[in-house]
């Protein structure tokens, strides 16, 4: 939109004024309730403010950050966060692509039926369904162990086990994350140029070949978008953990996000320390997103 080159300075100045008038409502909320608290959080992270000493925390420079990188629980939580992201993103992407490609050619009503079914867990959120999941994972009388026992198997400890619990979280996260990618893939696959597909089929290409050679490149932007939203979503996984395992057993399901909450409101109530975790997490997510954003923009402008 380089059409403004001919405009007079007066017009441009007027346009700036009008633009900011239009931006004002959004900026008030954005600056007031996102940026300002963020700055306050950064400042607090350099102090020893805590629950018992809220208003007059002392400036302690990088002590909170140094403590952070020597804290085994924080390290464990960081690893768990990475595990969740690394496990969830590829599975969600691959699965939603599979479901999307399985349903996009179906009749309109079956397509929207499946789309709806897979979207419902996203809509209802974790809070309402977590009680059912809790029961399903119950070690003693839970549904999964009931089924396992019915087939003569040995019951599993599920969320009671330090090795299994995080996978229980990932399973639920999976069900609440897959809906949006499916919707996106169904639309993207529907937009693939059909003449190319037909031409390939006439040439005797197999379904798999058509997929990789023709469909995959054209849904690449969607894939990148899916990867980004799923990454952000996985980093933010909180409600599930708070309601299901509270970070345990043995901090095996504690993520940075949960540890932040636990530090601020349950255990030591060191606000400065908790804010330092928030700052580190924010930086990591920002780097992640920036990389992905670059890649995504590169992908679409090709």
């Amino acid at each position, binding site marked *: 939109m380089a059409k403004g080159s001919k405009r007079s300075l007066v017009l441009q100045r007027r346009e700036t004024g009008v633009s900011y008038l239009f931006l004002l409502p959004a900026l008030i909320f954005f600056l007031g309730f996102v940026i300002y608290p963020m700055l306050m959080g950064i400042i607090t992270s350099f102090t020893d403010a805590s629950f018992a000493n809220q208003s007059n925390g002392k400036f302690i420079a990088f002590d909170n950050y140094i403590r952070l990188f020597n804290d085994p629980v924080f390290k464990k939580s960081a690893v768990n966060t990475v595990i969740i992201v690394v496990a969830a993103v590829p599975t969600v992407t691959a699965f939603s692509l599979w479901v999307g490609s399985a349903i996009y050619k179906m009749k309109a009503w079956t397509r929207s039926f499946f789309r709806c079914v897979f979207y419902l867990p996203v809509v209802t959120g974790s809070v309402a369904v977590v009680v059912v999941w809790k029961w399903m994972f119950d070690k003693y009388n839970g549904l999964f162990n009931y089924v396992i026992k019915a087939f003569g198997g040995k019951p599993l400890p599920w969320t009671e086990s330090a090795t299994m619990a995080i996978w229980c979280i990932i399973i639920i996260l999976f069900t609440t994350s897959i809906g949006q990618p499916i919707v996106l893939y169904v639309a993207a696959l529907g937009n693939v140029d059909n003449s190319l597909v037909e031409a390939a089929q006439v040439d005797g290409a197999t379904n798999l070949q058509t997929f990789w050679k023709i469909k995959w490149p054209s849904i690449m*932007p969607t894939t990148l978008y899916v990867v980004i939203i799923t990454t952000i979503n996985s980093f933010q996984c909180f409600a599930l953990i708070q309601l299901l395992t509270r970070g345990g057993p043995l901090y095996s399901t504690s993520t940075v996000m949960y540890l932040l909450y636990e530090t601020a409101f349950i255990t030591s109530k060191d606000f400065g320390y908790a804010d330092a975790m928030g700052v580190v997490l924010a930086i990591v997510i920002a780097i992640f997103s920036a990389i992905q954003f670059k890649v995504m923009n590169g992908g679409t402008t090709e």
Partner: protein
Amino acid sequence: MRQEKKISPYFIVSVILLVLLAIFFIFPLYWIITGSVKEKSDIIVKAGQSVKWIPTSISWDNYARLFKSSTQFFGAKIPMAIRWLFNSVFISVVAMLLTCVTASLAGYVLAKKRFWGRGVVFSLFVCAMALPKQVILIPLLQQVSNMGFLSSKTPVLSEVLPLFAVICPVVGWPFGVFLMKQFSENIPTSLLEAARIDGAGELTTFINVAFPIIKPGFGALAIFTFINAWNEYPLQLVMLQQDSVKTISLGIASLQSEMSNDYGLIMAGAALAAVPIIIVFLCFQKYFTQGITMGAVKG
């Protein structure tokens, strides 16, 4: 729509898998809704007993218990659970309206106007988009409390003002601005120029020319924000403590730990939390899928 000529084995296998997956996905909801009308003896599965997949009889007893505790609301006595539902709806609707207005105005100028500082403002929005809200929980809590949101003394205001502690950060979240900017790129500049030459004011131009074009995005943003605000659990958890200002999600979460041995009651609560939002989703599904895809595919 192109149909498969003959049914391939791959197709059959994938349909079977799809149906199985669908059952797995829908099961928690099915369990909540049937559980909420089950008799106590049907709900609790003790060791050695078989799971009651289908309720043997329908009972509204769980709902009666859910609605037992009541509260005063603008002079009327209503069940606490209904109050929670109201709070959720209020938060979602107000956040939705505010977001739609602020985001469409901002998105429009970011896409269509050249102005001083545009680049800075837009990058700020984009950078903040990926940040998890929990990162700012503590300072935000202190801030809204300093602003007097949480402890208003004015009778009417004190009923709803605390809810704005959740609404404002949701509205401030820049995703909406980003989405509306994507949609606003579709507005032909020539139309805007024409309106300007005709002497239309900026606001009139926005309403008459820009708005009809970004309308689908508007619908998507509306429902997206609605669902987002409804499920904004961490913010609600930290901001809203008093029973009377809790949302239905919070109410259900506290029921789950408070009354953990009353499954029927919890199921009724969970159903009350899930069903309204599902209905909203099903009604506006079309806008939603449309909007989501248009916003995203544009990149």
